[in-house]
């Protein structure tokens, strides 16, 4: 059944989780994602799930580890300072290969920073914020609808690859209200068997959920298995969106809520007859490197715009062909680049003489 509802980004991610069959949520309050924790507290117990307000984010992520080890779909959410605490658990989740969905509604840092929106946790999310050689699938929604859709996808991918999916939202997107469409039947993720889950060793050999390998050489073998899995994901799960790429002379690269503002700037410049395109990574890991490289065969100017002082721009620079220039514009600490500022930066880059 298709339903139309008006929701905030935060609530949409909660609703998507429940629709995806999430049966366990643990979280610790932090702004700007509190609506999500409250949504889960109200809705989840009524719909057959378990809600726990944990004593910390360290505990919350370990609870998710336990619930996922039991074979159920589980999730936690937080915002930047809390996500820093979750890095311990994320590393164990990666090592033990248990699925999990983790939402980061990013706010400004470093330290306590502020509750204003930011995109300054890109490095932490995509380069492995915890210890060890590991990856998470990082999905970056740019609307409330997409917050819903990508959260559901996140559960599916987490189970499919026994990996953590992080939904990288931000304070703007979390608080934004928009109408969304949900279709419970059409988008219900497939049920995936979990013969590795801890359910009591009844009539089978015991299952162990572990990340420790005592014997020398075994951790290396384990890492090789993980790397193989990461390569598989990188080859299959890249997602991005392009706009006006066919004839663009300059392409703006942005993700998440920043891509909404950048998209509006691109539309405005198009109206003025300027050939500007938009490239929006949806998966931040795996990053759409090959796809961006392909664009750079023809386009020689890229402007990366972020609500940070330049994090994704590094991946963009590594992706494009040599000969292509990558410029950057960003504001951090809660500052949000405006449409006008982006237009100005585009024109400056397009036409350096002026």
């Amino acid at each position, binding site marked *: 059944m298709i339903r139309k509802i008006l929701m905030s980004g935060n609530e949409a991610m909660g609703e998507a989780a429940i629709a995806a069959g999430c049966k*366990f949520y643990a979280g610790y309050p932090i702004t700007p994602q509190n609506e999500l924790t409250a949504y889960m507290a109200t809705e989840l117990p009524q719909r057959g799930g378990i809600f726990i307000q944990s004593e910390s984010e360290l505990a*919350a992520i*370990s*609870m998710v580890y*336990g619930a996922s080890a*039991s074979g159920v779909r589980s999730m936690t959410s937080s915002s930047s300072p809390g996500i820093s605490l979750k890095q311990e658990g994320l590393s164990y989740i990666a090592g033990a290969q248990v699925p999990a969905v983790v939402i980061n509604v990013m706010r400004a840092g470093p330290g306590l920073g502020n509750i204003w929106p930011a995109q300054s946790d890109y490095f932490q999310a995509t380069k492995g914020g915890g210890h060890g050689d590991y990856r998470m699938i990082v999905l970056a929604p740019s609307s409330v609808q997409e917050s819903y859709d990508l959260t559901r996808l996140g559960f599916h991918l987490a189970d499919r690859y026994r990996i953590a999916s992080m939904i990288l939202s931000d304070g703007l997107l979390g608080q934004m209200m928009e109408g969304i469409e949900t279709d419970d039947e059409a988008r219900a993720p497939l049920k995936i068997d979990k013969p590795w889950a801890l359910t*009591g060793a009844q009539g089978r050999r*015991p299952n162990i959920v572990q990340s420790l390998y005592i014997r020398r050489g075994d951790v290396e073998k384990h890492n090789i298995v993980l790397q193989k899995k990461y390569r598989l994901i990188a080859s299959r799960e890249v997602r991005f969106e392009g706009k006006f790429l066919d004839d663009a002379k300059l392409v703006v690269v942005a993700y998440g809520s920043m891509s909404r503002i950048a998209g509006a700037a691109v539309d405005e410049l198009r109206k003025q007859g300027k050939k500007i395109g938009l490239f929006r990574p949806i998966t931040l890991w795996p990053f759409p490197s090959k796809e961006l490289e392909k664009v750079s065969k023809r386009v020689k100017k890229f402007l990366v715009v972020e609500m940070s002082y330049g994090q994704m721009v590094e991946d963009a620079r590594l992706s494009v062909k040599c000969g292509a220039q990558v410029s950057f514009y960003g504001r951090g600490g809660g500052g949000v680049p405006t449409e006008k500022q982006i237009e100005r930066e585009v024109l400056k880059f397009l036409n350096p003489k002026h």
Partner: protein
Amino acid sequence: MTKNYKRTESLYDVATHYCAGCGHGILHRIVAEAIDELGVREKTIAIAPVGCAVIAYDYWRLDCAEAAHGRALAVATAIKRVQPDKVVFTYQGDGDLAAIGTAETIHAANRGENLTVIFVNNAVYGMTGGQMAPTTLLSQKTATTPLGRDAKLAGYPLKISEMLALLDGVYSVERTSVSNPKEVFNTKRAIKQAFENQIQNKGFSMVEVLSMCPTYWDKTPVDAAKWIEDHMSQYFKLGKLK
């Protein structure tokens, strides 16, 4: 003649990595016997700590999760909430349960999670080489208290069982030891009771066991057992706390 003393089913027939005279080996056996006597092996899920007992799953024929250091009770909380029909227990050292995991311990207890906790107090960090633990006795020498633990610098041995006994969420707390055969039997009784409490949905039950670490106490196994009786149990009084 029939053989009465056999390896219990929940214990694999393998030699452990524990040092001679270590309390962990005795406790592994006791835990396995209690589970087998209650007939719950096939529905039990263990949470191994980070500490000398981290590979307890190499010894127990049980489903087992390894938790990050100190987070065993957070992991156990979720496993039990998701599968209330299973028997879920943690097995944790003093560093794991009463230092890095203090918050997880207190809050799982305070929520009254229906879990069984085996708390192995050996007054040191065994795995990392005998450093001071929260439960290290005053004047006890360790790698990080080379002159003996000084209360002015490092505080007092933490009586976390007494603290937990104050919480409304806690159903039972008992302190025992494995320093002599009589105490070993008593520990077995207490641990079996703590599992029965969970099976009967009574709530959070913890057994703190004073356990020998001859290696980092720099003692022979016999002297280590005697040290529990002469010193450790003078400060950490044995008996039912709640």
